[in-house]
């Protein structure tokens, strides 16, 4: 049964140094508030898993929380590079970052295999790509009926998965809709899970066959309205595309990044305060100065 609890307590009790942690959300419903809280609580040596590491992982990597990254596409969607990710890979700042690199198909199947309690995922994949040359976790197996060669990769089994969703009810059952990405699989593949939600309601009013995660399959549900910002929650908020653009100059320099993280994350108590500070510091066009 999920505990309905403040995000600070959920991260404090469920995310531990050295854990394998997946924050999932495919453009939609990215759990930014939870990412901030992990930074605030200064978790170390995390193995971060995510199909599409974007701003949320740029922040965690830049703040030195990550030892390793398992991923399939790392960038600032619609803008360009992730400067903190690149700085870690290209120049080992703030320290060396080990990477294990897959394709989306590989990662998606690895989450499915994890949710299914299988040790590996089976797919047609990676053929002709150089990825198997640099990733020893991409192997090949033979079909016992046809002899065909198929790709095999280890399941993703995070210690903790964190997602953001639209609604929970008072028992902690969670409903999400729209672009679902791999969130259900990521939660079910994990030992523990945290779900931040836009609102807590008496009745989910879920349509038939909706994506509902029952309370008893979750560890903690936290009420964090707008907790996906600058990502969005369909039915609640729009994606703040400007924030993604403004992130580029912020993340370009180490000092600018550290100053921004201190002001907006380390020196704020929670996501609501972050949003207030952000509103003060970034009128139109001011983010660049803020990051400089």
């Amino acid at each position, binding site marked *: 049964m999920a505990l309905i609890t403040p995000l600070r307590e959920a991260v404090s009790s469920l995310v531990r140094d050295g854990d394998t942690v997946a924050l999932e959300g495919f453009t939609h419903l990215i759990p930014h508030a939870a990412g901030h809280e992990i930074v605030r609580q200064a978790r170390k040596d995390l193995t971060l898993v995510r199909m599409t590491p974007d701003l949320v992982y740029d922040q965690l990597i830049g703040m030195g929380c990550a030892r390793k990254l398992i991923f399939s596409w790392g960038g600032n969607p619609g803008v360009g590079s992730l400067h903190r990710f*690149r700085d870690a890979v290209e120049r080992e700042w703030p320290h060396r970052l080990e990477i294990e690199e897959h394709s989306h198909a590989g990662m998606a*199947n690895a989450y499915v295999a994890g949710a299914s309690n299988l040790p590996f995922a089976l*797919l047609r994949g990676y053929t*002709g790509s150089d990825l198997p040359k640099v990733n020893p976790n991409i192997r090949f197996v033979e079909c016992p009926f046809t002899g065909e060669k198929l790709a095999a990769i280890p399941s993703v089994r995070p210690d903790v998965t964190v997602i953001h969703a639209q609604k929970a009810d008072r028992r902690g059952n969670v409903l999400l809709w*729209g*672009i679902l*990405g*791999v969130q259900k699989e990521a939660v079910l593949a994990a030992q523990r899970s945290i779900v931040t939600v836009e609102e807590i309601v008496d009745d989910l009013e879920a349509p038939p066959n909706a994506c509902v995660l029952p309370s008893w399959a979750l560890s903690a549900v936290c009420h964090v309205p707008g907790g996906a910002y600058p990502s969005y929650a*369909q039915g609640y908020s729009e994606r703040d595309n400007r924030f993604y653009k403004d992130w580029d100059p912020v993340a370009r320099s180490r000092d600018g990044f550290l100053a921004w993280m201190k002001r907006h994350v380390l020196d704020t108590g929670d996501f609501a305060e972050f949003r207030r500070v952000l509103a003060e510091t970034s009128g139109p066009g001011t983010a660049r100065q803020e990051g400089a």
Partner: protein
Amino acid sequence: MAELDFSATEIMTVAASRLLKNGTVCFVGIGLPSTAANLARLTHAPDVVLIYESGPIGAKPTVLPLSIGDGDLALTADTVVSTPEIFRYWLQGGRIDVGFLGAAQVDRFANINTTVIGPYDDPKVRLPGAGGAPEIAAQAKEVFIVLKQSRKAFVDRLPFVTSAGFLDGGDAREKAGITGGGPTAVITDLGILTPDPVTRELTLTSVHPGVTVEQVREATGWDLKVSPDLKTTAIPDAEALTALRDLQARTAKAHGQDSSGGEG
């Protein structure tokens, strides 16, 4: 309608869009491919089926998505499934006619690099990585690649093959057991390259109006073959150009910026 002036990016987009036939099921990469695919849908191919890796099937966005998971994709789709389902049942399931991809670099056999420039373990430039491309490139019945042409992008030898084109050429792709037909066109801001039917080497088969063969060769990092039957790309008709510009204007208004794009 009267002819309109157009930019190199516009003719690239319109030329790419024209390749997409009505009714085609298209797995769409974000950015230029998404622009071209949506332009096709808004002009000559109203029944094209657009699938995005984030989950929307049959998306009909009113503005260009800035990310691969924009809400407009979900709201306008016939249905939205999970990302694993997209890759398992729809792509690997063999249901995609055309994979429409961008690239950081391609080589003469239309292999794609989106991973690193320089050695993998000590990269000069770390690119975003594979995303959906390796399996799109392998499993779609055919693949269109759209990117701007330059010596940096069109290289003799890729530092890293992220997604297979024709590998070393000839029947190397089939021999590797890759089932999809592979790239059938690389559409650039200078012209259109298509693989030789036998050697599978990319060959310049169309130059855009006002572009010389020499310019294309200058922008290619290998000794580019030119088709004896070289054509000049038809100029974008006014309807397509207008539709493209309207789409981009709507997009800029909605997103507050222009529509580059990325996965994520």
